[in-house]
């Protein structure tokens, strides 16, 4: 996939993920770019990848350069693309849960390793739980409406985080939305 100024964030993120995998670099897409892939309505300004295993800076720079990205401080920028790429420090936990199993997401014949819809949903919920970020709650609901998520796993994790009340707010928002959608169809 040739990246250009018209490329969307999901296209950029998946092209970068594919490129890194080709270079033997295991990197998991997290954060807002995951949400953009799963909802197709939200967009962010960057794609965050968490590196797994040992990766040297020259190897990362070389892989990114082949796609036209240059390192600028902590981020990689592309002269034609408005989105930038960052590699925040790992590991990849969501709250206290360290057993995150990423999956492959595909677009235009390319694939990238990313948080699953359930984990992307939990990732947004963590922002709602800890910072009262209502936008994060809305996005968690949107992911759960557009993708198949394991609400039981989310409930269990939320209880472990001491966030049962806020989790129920999420479930209520989700259920309310489903109810409204069913009514509209009639």
């Amino acid at each position, binding site marked *: 996939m040739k990246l250009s100024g018209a490329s969307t964030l999901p296209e950029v993120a998946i092209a970068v993920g594919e490129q890194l995998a080709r270079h033997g670099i295991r990197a998991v897409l997290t954060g807002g770019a995951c949400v953009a892939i799963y909802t197709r309505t939200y967009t962010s300004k960057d794609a965050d990848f968490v590196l797994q295993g040992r990766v040297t800076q020259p190897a990362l720079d070389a892989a990114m350069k082949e796609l036209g990205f240059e390192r600028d401080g*902590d981020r990689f920028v592309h002269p034609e693309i408005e989105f930038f790429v960052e590699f*925040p*420090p*790992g*590991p990849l*936990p969501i*709250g*206290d849960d*360290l057993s995150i199993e990423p999956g492959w997401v595909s677009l235009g014949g390319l694939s990238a390793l990313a948080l699953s819809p359930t984990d992307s949903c939990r990732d947004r919920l*963590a*922002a709602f739980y*800890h*910072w009262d970020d209502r936008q994060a709650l809305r996005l968690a609901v949107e992911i759960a409406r557009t993708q198949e998520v394991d609400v039981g796993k989310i409930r269990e994790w939320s209880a472990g985080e001491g966030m049962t009340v806020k989790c129920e707010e999420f479930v209520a928002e989700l259920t309310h939305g489903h109810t409204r959608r069913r009514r509209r169809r009639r």
Partner: protein
Amino acid sequence: MAVKAIGSPFGSETRTRVLVALRLLDSSFQRELARILGRSPSVVQKALRGLERDGLVSGRLIGRTRSYSLNPRYFGIKELEAFLSRIAQADTDLRQRTADLRRRPRRAGKPL
């Protein structure tokens, strides 16, 4: 030069004391931390940026002020908090400085 009361397990004395101060205060901002630690705002800012990059601290804008706290989503936050509390016990100076800080509300216009 003062003898260091505590070591620097987080890379530098300023980084360590910023973390301990945030543990004691829950949240703070660059100038308040600089005042408490007796360091220049630029030194504190550099420490905060590094800690934020490492994921230990999170900052968010409240009005025009960037407020910092320990990152509640940091891997091992509970252990980090426990360790910082332990360090705080050994840093009586920092505990005293944070204890002297007035944070309760004060009606606007009321003389100090």
